[in-house]
C-alpha cells in the first residue's frame, strides 16, 4: 500500500452517514472530523516541491562551489515514503473479523425472515374467525383457547380475576383443595 499515494477522499461519506444508526451519530461525526483534518493537512503542501533554478544560482551566488555541492546532493537525495508500521495489517485483521460477523448476522437474519414469512402464510390461510367453532379455534391457537382440563381459568377468563397465591392460601386455610371428602360437602 505504500506505493499508492492517497490524494483526496474516495469514501462515500453520504452513503455512510445514511447507514449510521442514530445512537452512533456522534461517533460518526467525530470520525469524519478526524478524517477531514487529515485531508486538510495533506492539502497544506503541494504534491511536489517546486524546482530549483540551478543556473540562476550558479550565475549569481557568492560561492559557486557550495552551489554545485548542493546541486549534487539535492539531486541525489530521495525522501523515503514513510512506512505505516503495521497499521494496515491491524485494520485488515479487524475488518476480517467484523465482516464475518456481518455475514453471519445476515444469514441468521434471512432465516428469521423466512420464518416470519412462513408464519404470515399460515395466518393468511386460517379460516376466518367468524366461521370457527371453539374446537377449530383450539386447533389454530391452542395457547389462546380455553382449556378446562389442562389450564382451567375462572370466568370471565381475564388475567385480573384468576386467583393468585394469596387467594389460594385464603381458600386452603379454610379447607378447600383438601384431599379426601369435601369439608363442606361430605
Amino acid at each position, binding site marked *: 500500500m505504500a506505493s499508492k499515494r492517497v490524494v483526496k477522499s474516495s469514501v462515500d461519506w453520504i452513503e455512510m452517514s445514511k447507514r*449510521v444508526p442514530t445512537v452512533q451519530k456522534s461517533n460518526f461525526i467525530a470520525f469524519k472530523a478526524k478524517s477531514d483534518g487529515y485531508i486538510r493537512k495533506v492539502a497544506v503542501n503541494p504534491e511536489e516541491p517546486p524546482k530549483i533554478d540551478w543556473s540562476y544560482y550558479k550565475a549569481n551566488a557568492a560561492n559557486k562551489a557550495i552551489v554545485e555541492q548542493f546541486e549534487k546532493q539535492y539531486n541525489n537525495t530521495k525522501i523515503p515514503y514513510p512506512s505505516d508500521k503495521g497499521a494496515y495489517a491491524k485494520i485488515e485483521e479487524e475488518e476480517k473479523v467484523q465482516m464475518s460477523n456481518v455475514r453471519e448476522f445476515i444469514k441468521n437474519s434471512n432465516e428469521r425472515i423466512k420464518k416470519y414469512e412462513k408464519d*404470515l402464510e399460515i395466518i393468511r390461510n386460517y379460516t376466518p374467525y367468524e366461521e370457527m367453532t371453539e374446537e377449530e379455534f383450539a386447533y389454530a391457537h*391452542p395457547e389462546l383457547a380455553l382449556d378446562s382440563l389442562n389450564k382451567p381459568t375462572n370466568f370471565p377468563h381475564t388475567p385480573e380475576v384468576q386467583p393468585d397465591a394469596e387467594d389460594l392460601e385464603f381458600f386452603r386455610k379454610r379447607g378447600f383443595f383438601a384431599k379426601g371428602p369435601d369439608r363442606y360437602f361430605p
Partner: protein
Amino acid sequence: MLSRLSFKTGVTFFRQDRLPLLRYQPSASLEMYRIEKNKIVKEVSVDDITKVAATEVTDLVPRPSPFDSPLRDHVNFPKPVRLERPSPTRMAMFPEEWFKFLYPKMGVTGPYTLGIGLILLLVNKEIYLIDDFEFRHTVAFYLWIYVFVKTPLGKLLQNFFLDNLESEQFRKFRLYNEEVRLEAIKHEKEEQWRQEGKQLLFDAKKENVGLQLEAMYRNNSMDLYQQVKRRLDYQVEVAKIDSRIKGQFMVNWVNEKVKESISKMSEKDNLKQCIANLNTLAAKA
C-alpha cells in the same frame, strides 16, 4: 354461548354456534417492540381490547383442522356462520323467511291474512281467551319491541351494545399478528443494509492511514526544499551585498581622487581663470 355484550333481537331458527372465546380477553395495545435474540418481544399497555395480552409471539404450527378437510361435504353439512346482526324480520318479530315461503301461493298479503285469520279463529272459537290483562300485556309487549327495534332510541342502544363487535376484534387480532411479522421483516432488512455499511468504515480507516503518510512525506520534501533554497538565497544575497559595497567604494574613491586633484592646483589660479571667463561672458552678453 353468545358474546357477553351483544343484544340480539328477533327470533331466528338457525343454530348459533359458539363463538370461540379467547383465553384472555385481549386487553393490550401495541406500543413498540424490540428484537431480542431471535424473538419478538412486545411491550404492551392496557387499553385496546383487541390485542393479545401475551408479550411473546411464538412460532405458529400449522395444524390443519378436520373441519376444513377437502373431504367435507359442504352441501349437506354447511359451515354455520354466526350472525352478528339479526336476520331481517317484519314487524320486528316475524322473520322474512315465512313471507318468502308463502309468497308463491298467497302473494304479498298472504301471511298477513293467515295471521289475522288465525287470531280471529282462535278468539272466535274461544280457544284463546282475551281479557283486559292479555290485551294490555300483548300491546305493551309489542310496543316495547317496536321501541327497541325500530325507533332511533332503539338503534342507539343497538349500536352501543354492538360496538365491540367480535368480528372486528378478530380482524384486528389477525392484522396485529400480521403487522408484527411484517414490521419485523422490514426491520431485519434495514438492519442488514446498515451492517453492510461497515465495509465503508474500514475503507475510510485505511484511507486515513494513507492520508497521514502522504502528509508526512509532503512535509518532509517541502522542508528539504526550503532549507536548500534558504542557503542558496543567502549566497545570492551575499554576492549582491559584495558588489554593492564594492561599487560604493569605487565611487567614493573616485570622488576622493578628484577632490585631491582639485586641491593640488592652486586656488588662486583657479579663481583668476574663473573671473577672466566671466568677463568674457559678460562682454559677449
